[in-house]
């Protein structure tokens, strides 16, 4: 079931939670809504679900599920599954009854026989690997188990659209990782359309087919994780998707200077701010004719496949972060207090007015 939003806006009193938004989600897609706190992710998700009404203005917005206009359809008739951030399990019902709820409240005509309900609930519980806990009450389950029950409950009614609000927000890193993989698997197997909210960029990039990046009630960019990371549309998206190093200085005659540091760049004269990712910083013992950026190592932390190195210098307003491979790390024999030279491999600039990106790659 595809989802289409036309001109959906939302005000709470005087605060505008969503600027008019257009969004197309294809059938079978898994889409992540990513953005900082207060950017309107939950609001957008709840409007899709029908838990919240979009503004009714002169040109009212429209929500389509496939060809069906659901703008004025009550949440209970939209046939969606909603997974709440804090699970919202019914505390007085056993796990079994929670999962069966959606089936038992169907009108008598559409309700399956009790045997069939039982079979379906157990199939779902098996899928979420909780069939042995069917008689427990929610209070007797761990957070991860509760979240899986809440997923099974939402899936029991076989929704064509599954909406999840920070589904793994309250869980620890390891359980999150596991549930993430498991949700992806489930999505591919059952073939529904899913939209989930997260403020964790790693989660969004890992799990989604496409990511919707939001800030201040606006959609900043919609793209595949790969595209998003490689070609961010603006500075906000670039900064939100990972660590960023800033270099600010004056350009004259193709040389950017900043204190005693300088660097050849192909830019017109004027004030400039350049942005680079940590892996775009190379470290050497000697300066080159192209650049002279002396730095001092202030901290070293090995993280997984790479080593993160923190750099400081007089000419830097904020410390830089560089990631180096373990082999380079050993080769250079890096240690704290060591003085080195940094070489940007690749940088971006986002001029404030035009919001157009300039990129330049240097062969190092």
């Amino acid at each position, binding site marked *: 079931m595809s989802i289409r939003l036309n001109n959906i806006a939302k005000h709470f009193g005087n605060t505008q939670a969503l600027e008019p938004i257009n969004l197309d989600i294809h059938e079978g897609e898994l889409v992540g809504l990513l953005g900082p706190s207060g950017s309107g992710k939950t609001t957008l998700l709840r409007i899709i679900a029908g838990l*919240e*009404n979009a503004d009714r203005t002169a040109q009212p917005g429209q929500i389509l599920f496939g060809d069906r206009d659901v703008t004025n359809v009550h949440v209970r008739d939209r046939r969606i599954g909603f997974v709440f951030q804090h699970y919202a399990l019914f505390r007085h019902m056993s796990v079994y009854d929670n999962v069966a709820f959606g089936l038992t409240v169907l009108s008598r005509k559409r309700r399956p026989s009790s045997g069939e309900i039982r079979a379906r609930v157990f199939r779902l519980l098996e899928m979420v690997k909780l069939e042995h806990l069917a008689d427990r009450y929610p209070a007797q389950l761990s957070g991860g188990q509760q979240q899986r029950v809440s997923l099974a409950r939402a899936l029991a009614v076989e929704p064509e659209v599954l909406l999840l609000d920070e589904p793994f927000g309250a869980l620890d890193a390891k359980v999150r990782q596991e549930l993430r993989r498991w949700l992806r698997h489930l999505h591919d197997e059952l073939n529904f359309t899913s939209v989930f909210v997260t403020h964790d960029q790693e989660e969004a990039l890992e799990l989604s087919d496409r990511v919707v990046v939001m800030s201040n009630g606006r959609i900043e960019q919609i793209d595949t994780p790969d595209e998003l990371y490689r070609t961010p549309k603006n500075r906000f998206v670039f900064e939100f998707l990972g660590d960023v190093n800033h270099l600010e200085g004056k350009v004259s005659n193709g040389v950017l200077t900043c204190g005693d540091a300088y660097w050849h760049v192909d830019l017109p004269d004027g004030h400039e701010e350049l942005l680079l990712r940590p892996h775009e910083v190379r470290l050497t013992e000697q300066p080159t004719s192209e650049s002279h950026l002396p730095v001092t190592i202030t901290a070293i932390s090995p993280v997984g496949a790479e080593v993160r190195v923190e750099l400081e210098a007089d000419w830097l307003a904020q410390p830089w972060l560089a990631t180096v491979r373990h082999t380079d790390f050993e080769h250079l024999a890096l240690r704290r207090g060591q003085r080195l030279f940094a070489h940007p491999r690749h940088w971006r600039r986002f001029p404030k007015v035009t919001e157009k990106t300039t990129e330049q790659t240097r062969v190092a």
Partner: protein
Amino acid sequence: MRRIGDAPLIRRLLIATALVLSALFLLLPLVAIFAQAFSQGVMVFWTNVSNTFTLHAIGLTLMIALLTIPVCLVFGVALAWLVTRFSFPGRRILQTLIDIPFAVSPVVAGLIYLLLYGRNGWIGSWLDTYDIQLMFAWPGILMVTIFVTCPFVARELIPLMQAQGSREEEAAVTLGASGWTTFRRVTLPNIRWALLYGVILTNARAVGEFGAVSVVSGAIRGQTNTLPLHLEQLYQDYNAVGAFACAALLALIALLTLAAKAGLEWRASRREAFA
């Protein structure tokens, strides 16, 4: 946001039903009290209130309330401190025991005091040999009033002090504060509004207690008549306006109690909003 029962029709219907029923069931009696009290004009009301017997009943009622409050206060604070700050066997039993006055019929409460301290009771007969009579006199009224009102302060304090925990007091003790200083400087500021509300409830009940008091007072006009008892006598004597004049005074105290409660709750919610 959509919640169950938010459909405009249902909402209006339920609100209207609640308002109409409450108006008939709760508000109308309140209006009736004052309407009756002033039905023959302010002058008659005033004559009724300033009658010697009425004045004496007011005095006795106030005296009983003034004596009851400190006793209940000390007990309530001590019990709340005990059950929320220490863990010991029998703690739950103590907490259950203080609910007894809520469950016991006021008439039964009066009766058990009468049986014990009356002339035939084992304490009463002993006191009688020294010519001390507690029942059918103001000390008896005071005793049953304390019985009936003792849970209020404790019941207000216990949930609050439980929720607050003892971290702050422990901090004060580690800083070298003595027990009394800890209580006065750390505990008291945290519980003072609950304490005040407990006192207000105690007062309302102490002033208005009828069943228990009517058993032990003897209801002698100008001697052991509290305001509720006086009101009953006037009513039985077919002096309805006089009875309702007393009722209006008591209703006024009740209204002040409600206002105080609303005020304290408003205060608490505002503090929460700023926290």
